[in-house]
């Protein structure tokens, strides 16, 4: 048996991008599954009790709509960071990442505002429990995204050439925008 010849150094295959994409698929599946259960329960409760949203509860639609619009900004800023990284423009890159994190924090704030305006507790019936479960997981994913942005900003400002990480970061926020759009439609529009 002859020895196998050593090959050249393996070409980079964008491991972080692939890994992040798979993680994002997992997130989409989780929220998609939860929305499916939400829809089924909503149908069951409407058939049984006639309503799903508890009487007297008003969803602050303005905050929900503004959060949706904010995702356009988040995706734009995340892509701006990718653009800056390709040009090795650290000033633009760090500023774009910081702005991404800031707007994401605003979305979290909007969600907190929705909670306070709706005025229902987690134990106030089936709707409330499922609402907090779904939107709570969304907030958790937002917090992970903010941490991702902050860590990416520190790495990039520290001199790392992080094109791949920033591309993965942008993919994460694109996925989050898809996730929020689905939640916005099913929970805040369809009610």
């Amino acid at each position, binding site marked *: 048996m002859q020895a196998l010849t*050593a*090959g050249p150094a393996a070409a980079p*295959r964008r*491991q972080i991008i692939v890994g992040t994409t798979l993680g994002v698929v*997992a997130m989409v599946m989780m929220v998609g599954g939860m929305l499916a259960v939400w829809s089924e329960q909503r149908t069951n409760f409407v058939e049984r009790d006639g309503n799903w949203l508890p009487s007297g509860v008003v969803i602050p639609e303005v905050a929900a709509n503004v959060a949706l619009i904010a995702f356009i900004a988040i995706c734009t800023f995340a892509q701006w960071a990718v653009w800056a990284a390709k040009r090795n423009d650290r000033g633009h890159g760090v500023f774009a990442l910081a702005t991404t994190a800031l707007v994401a924090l605003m979305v979290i704030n909007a969600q907190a505002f929705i909670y306070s305006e709706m005025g229902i507790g987690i134990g106030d019936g089936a709707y409330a429990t499922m609402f907090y479960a779904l939107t709570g*997981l969304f907030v958790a994913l937002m917090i992970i995204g903010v941490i991702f942005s902050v860590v990416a900003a520190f790495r990039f400002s520290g001199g790392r050439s992080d094109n791949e990480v920033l591309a993965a970061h942008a993919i994460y926020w694109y996925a989050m925008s898809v996730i929020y759009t689905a939640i916005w439609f099913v929970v805040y529009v369809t009610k």
Partner: protein
Amino acid sequence: MTTIDPTDEVIASGVEAEDSALRRLLGAVADWLTSTDHKKIGRLFLGGGLLGLLAAIVINVIIGIERAGIANIDDNALAQIFDAQRGGLVFGTLLPLAIGLCVAIVPMQLGARSVAFPRLAAAGFWMWAGGLILSMIALVNNGGGLGGDPDMVDLFLGAHGLMAIGLAATGVSIATSVLTTRAPGMTVRRVPFFSMSALVTGLGLVVVMPVLLGTLTYLFLDHRNGREAFGGNTGFYDWAGWIFSPGTVVLFAIPVAGLLAEGAPLLFKQRTPARGIVFAGFGLMGVAALGAVTQDAIHNVPWAGSELYLGGGEDVREKLFDVLPWAMFNLLPLLGLTIVLLMTLFLARPVKGAKPTVTPALAFGFLGLGMIMVGMIGTALHAIDDLGLQGTVFAEGALIYVVYGTVLAALGGMAHWAPKLWGVNLQTAKVLPLAGLGVLATVLASLPSYVAGFDEPRDIYAVLVLVGHVLMALTVIGFIGLLTTSVMSSDGQAEADPYDGQTLEWATAAPAPANNFVDAPTVMSAEPLADSKSNYGQTISEKGDR
């Protein structure tokens, strides 16, 4: 005195020597606890899976004793015992065994030095192990899906969520490995069969486990707050029961098909033509992920009353819509499995002048996949309403066929790749009898449940099932004993390529070193190692490189 000799003081001090031994032991434990070596992570999963299997067997034996009327079990404990049975078979046995083999072997097959995101894979193992232990604690303390202690029910739900996160994380690691760490020249079409099956299962974990996690989040919060949406603790099986359905767990058994496809070409040293067909077979088996997408345990066919009569156009349309989900969920994975089996038979046809080499991968893989096939057929039948199998032990038989089939294949995989994982060559002649015993055990543990589904529960069926589980315990203990004695008596040097292999893992030393390969090898075909052997598969290689 050389500089590495111990000092006189150390020799004189027994306490210090003891300290040193203790330190070595602690060092070894710390090494295993914090290791990011994929072979160690894989072996941790395999070890955990074997322990989980033995525990699941004990639970099944207890159930068998109750059903056979040998002894009565407190009704209050039965709920926890049935929870432990399902959880033990799926989360404690099937998943860790299949995933462990993938984590341990795939990077070596790909010519990679490590699994992608090794810390993620290690974290995945510890989350799975922690979740399993917590779920057992919950069951012991009256928790579980049907438990009576609210806090322990919460713990049970949280523990399953933890396992789901860990398994999904490991799935990301496995799938990313296959997609990004292949050796130069290894196109996707040249990926070894086992690694491709691992990719399908890895993607399956990424797709399925988050859905389970989302459902568990609902159930957990609902159970802690009011219990209005999901009916309290009984909601677990209504809303998350699909994860235990044999139709869904087939998704995690796909590496069994990969193992068989890996062993078949070695029988007569043949290269595999039309690899894409086998890949398609794995993909079709992956359709089992529909269990999570639809979150439905049974895609039943409500033919009741119709006696298969098709009336007018509307009737045909209605029945078609009834049958399609059932066919997609049950028949497509079965078709995929059949494709892999047929390809194996094609490769197993005798070649003139060639001496057959029966590897553990081929023997155990063939028998294991056969068992899984019977389980899948049972799952398809179970869903047909008119047969009246729902609510009987028939489904339990199907689940055990699938799980024990996977166990058989995992044992075969461990024996096949023992030189790389443990640095020992297990003699095929000693391993094969265990395969026979394992098949007998599987059939006895499952077939009577099938028969009881059509007939009615009888003591004799329960006794046969009981015997089957005991035989499976003997099979596993026998295998562990064989492996342990081989490792103990080994000098640490095993034959690196005992089966005249085709794929890259056989190019490494035995046992494989920490980083597998010094240099990433160049791959020119789907059988890179065969290329380097001048006399390999003469008759087939004349057909040229693909």
